[in-house]
């Protein structure tokens, strides 16, 4: 297995672990962190392939993804804290009334 395949397999594994974490964990903050793990897996594949192609475009795209992730966390964490203050818990089952 050469390095590119190894790194792409790792990025798939990280994405799948993050997806499993979002589905199986109860705590809202842990789910948020698993989403970050999924994003990291995708970024790893992007970096690997852009390093293969020797292009700076991929690096710029990765930088923009980082900025978007930072903005996402800056909004998501206050929302989670707001939900936790309203329901006094971070358990996912407490938020079933958000279903449409």
């Amino acid at each position, binding site marked *: 297995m050469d390095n590119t395949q190894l790194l792409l397999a790792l990025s798939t594994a990280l994405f799948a672990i993050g997806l499993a974490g979002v589905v199986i964990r109860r705590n809202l903050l842990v789910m948020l962190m698993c989403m970050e793990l999924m994003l990291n897996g995708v970024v790893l594949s992007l970096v690997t392939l852009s390093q293969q192609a020797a292009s700076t475009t991929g690096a710029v795209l990765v930088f923009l993804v980082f*900025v978007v992730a930072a903005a996402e966390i800056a909004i998501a964490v206050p929302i989670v804290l707001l939900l936790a203050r309203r329901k006094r818990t971070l358990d996912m089952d407490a938020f079933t009334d958000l279903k449409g």
Partner: protein
Amino acid sequence: MQQALLWFFVLASLAGGLLMLVLRHPMRVALALISTMVSLAAIYAILGVHVIAVFQVLIYVGAVMVFMVYAIMLLDVRDPSFTHRYSGYLLPGLAGAAVLVVAFVRGLAGSTPAVMGAGVGTTFDVQPFSVAFLNDYWLYFELTSVLLLAAVVAAIAILKARRRGNG
């Protein structure tokens, strides 16, 4: 040597990811995620993409995860979601993730190895990156600053909503 280091950091990031699924307390999950992110930064450095490695440490570990750790410390540790780890979707979630991994890795193993050689050993220094960034992609740079401004305004709006909800 480099190959051994690459394998070490690949296994370390995988172990950190798996620990995120089994650890109970969110603070430990956050520390596992931080170790995964640092291992990924090391992988980027081994690949020669130093700019991205620095950004990974600065933005992800330095900003995002510190914010997350602060949020965890603000919360009540007697929360029932801290003691019961898994929701009712434990088996379907794990099965779905396993199917995803097996399908992707089988597809990867069946494919012909990518054309190596062209980009191997290319280093991404700060200078070519920043020249490309500010010459060709200045519009996206400005758009990200607009996005960050929107995020700041949204965070302040959420804070206001919280105060109104309490008062």
